[in-house]
């Protein structure tokens, strides 16, 4: 006997005494042009894999993985954004029927129903028919889900200016920029109000952005120091024009050093 109670073992082990030759299975079930997995079919799969790998490696070389500035919990101006495959959930939570008092709706009920339905699909769609047109409810629900996910992702991504975002958040290694504190411009920087918000190393703070990694001319900086920009009020600078010039040149030079 090959199996069951009459099976013979070597000693006390689980290894059968009479090794059976491997017998290939009967594939009469599939009468078409079948072929062996190894090596015929696997070769085709691997050729696809090799082409895919070349494309994938080209992608990694053409587009370096993005890295933003080191996390700064005090950066209040930062707009959070999840990775793209979570954008649809992120977008869903923006709608009125899914936020505020209906938060449960957006965070639990809708995704729960969708993913729960997906998980239990074999039991919800338990007929014997397999073709999509023969099970219209399952097919249309899936298409509906698909369209809404794509549409939500699109809606979320459309409102983001990806290029500006990438530009603003370029990584800066702090040590790379050395502030020349002997510079007369730094004197002006620290005696005027600048240092209070932008920090003693131009690194920025809770109320103001970093002055390192900015791309502005001296004229623009002089204008901003006097007239403000964004959340920075006007009239912050109260020195002479000569000091203003020194300050602007100092900030420009701090951005050039590298």
């Amino acid at each position, binding site marked *: 006997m090959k199996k069951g109670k009459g099976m013979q073992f070597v000693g006390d082990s689980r290894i059968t005494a009479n090794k059976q030759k491997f017998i290939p299975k009967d594939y009469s079930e599939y009468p078409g042009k079948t072929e062996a997995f190894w090596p015929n079919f696997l070769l085709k799969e691997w050729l696809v894999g090799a082409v895919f790998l070349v494309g994938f490696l080209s992608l990694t070389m053409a587009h370096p993985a993005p890295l*933003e500035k080191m996390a700064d919990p005090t950066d209040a101006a930062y707009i959070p954004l999840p990775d793209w495959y979570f954008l649809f959930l992120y977008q869903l939570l923006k709608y009125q029927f899914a936020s505020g008092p209906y938060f449960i709706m957006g965070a639990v009920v809708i995704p729960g129903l969708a993913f729960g339905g997906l*998980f239990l699909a074999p039991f919800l769609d338990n007929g014997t028919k397999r073709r999509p047109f023969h099970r219209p409810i399952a097919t249309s629900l899936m298409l509906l889900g698909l369209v809404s996910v794509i549409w939500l992702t699109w809606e979320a991504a459309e409102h983001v200016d990806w290029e500006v975002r990438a530009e603003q958040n370029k990584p800066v290694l702090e040590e790379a920029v050395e502030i020349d504190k002997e510079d007369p411009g730094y004197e002006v920087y620290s005696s005027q109000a600048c240092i209070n918000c932008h920090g003693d190393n131009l690194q920025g703070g809770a109320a103001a952005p970093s002055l390192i990694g900015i791309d502005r001319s001296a004229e623009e900086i002089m204008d901003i120091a006097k007239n403000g920009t964004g959340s920075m009020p006007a009239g912050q600078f109260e020195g002479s024009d000569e000091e203003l010039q020194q300050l602007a040149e100092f900030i420009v030079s701090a951005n050039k050093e590298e």
Partner: protein
Amino acid sequence: MMQKIYDWIDERVDITPLWRDIADHEVPEHVNPAHHFSAFVYCFGGLTFFVTVIQILSGMFLTMYYVPDIENAWKSVYYLQTEVAHGQIVRGMHHWGASVVIVMLFLHTLRVFFQGAYKKPRELNWMVGVSIFFIMLALGLTGYLLPWDNKAYFATQVTLNIAGDLPYIGDFAKTLLAGDPEIVGAQTLTRFFAIHVFFLPAALFALMGAHFILIRKQGISGPL
């Protein structure tokens, strides 16, 4: 020599059937793109597995440089990406692979769904597969925090706030994930790291093993 070693082992533990079963099974015509070009849709599962292998390998290599610590995490990522040879490629593989694997999983899921391939007797394998999808999404979510840059930090803060707003279990879930009821910081990073490199991959391996064993046991679904 190799043959002798093989025979020696095979005589004792009978390993031949293990690989012969995989190597010799016949692949039916309807999944073979050589016969029907439309059968390329059957590639997505295999490509998902391939990208998963890339993810595992590149992840293993990345941990040679990466440290899960809020002071050094970003610096180590910056260092490995800018200073170490091919660091940009290895990190790029892991970063883009995370996106590609989701795309491939998505396409694979759609193929199985629209072909009705999850029907009896393959219900169990469908559920295993959907679980793998969830694990992959969780891997993406936890991995997103690890470089500790602004986008990682603020996205995770939002995620944790969503978890914290859940009814009944909110505070519990948030504290469990973040390691602190208020702060998203040192403990959050170490927790996400542990989940990302130990807990989720362990679950992933178990589920993938089950997925493949079930495929071999039940065979691929017949033509429509």
